[in-house]
């Protein structure tokens, strides 16, 4: 992996419009039973404008930034050797249906550990008002030859 990736900022992704059915589909896939993920009336009763996304939903938006990183011609990342090492989401507020979100990835560190390398990428996700919604942080491990 290219060590000069460290500190690189990628351009903001195109706006992602969070759909109610997409939230329901994702919520079903993670075995949610929470009514605020499915029913607008339950979400409104809890003080939200529409259905609320589960805590890990931000990965759907983050994924678009990781695709930018993996596709960078000088990154030298072989996708078939990538393993997800760790993941974090730090929220300013929950994602709700109707949000339009953009994400901007910064490579916070590149490390080498024996034959393997590790890249930590922070994707700051903001709404159309420019307010921070969530930062999604992934460490990807690229396995080298054993």
């Amino acid at each position, binding site marked *: 992996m290219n060590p000069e990736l460290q500190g690189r900022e990628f351009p903001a992704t195109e706006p992602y419009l969070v759909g109610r059915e997409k939230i329901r589909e994702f919520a*079903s896939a993670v*075995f*949610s039973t929470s009514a605020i993920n499915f029913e607008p009336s339950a979400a409104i009763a809890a003080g939200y404008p529409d259905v609320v996304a589960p805590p*890990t939903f931000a990965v759907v938006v983050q994924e678009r930034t990781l695709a930018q990183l993996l596709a960078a011609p000088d990154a030298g990342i072989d996708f078939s050797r990538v393993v997800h090492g760790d993941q*974090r989401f730090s929220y300013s507020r929950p994602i709700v249906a109707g949000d339009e979100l953009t994400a901007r990835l910064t490579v916070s560190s590149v490390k080498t550990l024996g034959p393997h390398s590790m890249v930590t990428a922070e994707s700051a996700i903001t709404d159309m008002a420019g307010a921070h919604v969530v930062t999604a942080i992934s460490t990807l491990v690229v396995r080298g030859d054993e």
Partner: protein
Amino acid sequence: MAPSVADLTVGAVVAEATYLLTRDSLVRYAGASGDFNPIHYRDAFALGVGLDGVIAHGMLTMGVAVQPVVEWLGPQGIVVDYQSKFTRPVLVDAEVGATIAVVAKVGAVDDEGARIDLTVTFNEATVLGKAQVRVALAAA
């Protein structure tokens, strides 16, 4: 009624649950998340890259593991931070699937909320490391 900080004791179990992940679950998550890496649905491909078989998406395990906490929090509860390391793969057998078990305990409490620590196991081995959920709670 949402839990409040005053109700919590460090070390207390607040929620636990088991979930059966099947190949159907993996396909459903692949579609919902957009992660179509074939190691999550094609045996020959998974074996070809050195795995013991098809494995669950780490993000599926992470997404499912927080659900007992979400249920315990109720509709007013808010997860403000959630992190995990992926320490072991969850092999999902084509016939019987894979059952994961989640135990959620209070790790720390302060004025604004609590840190809930998750223990997530498959075949009695932990599959997530340092799985911590920071939740916002009412003070009383």
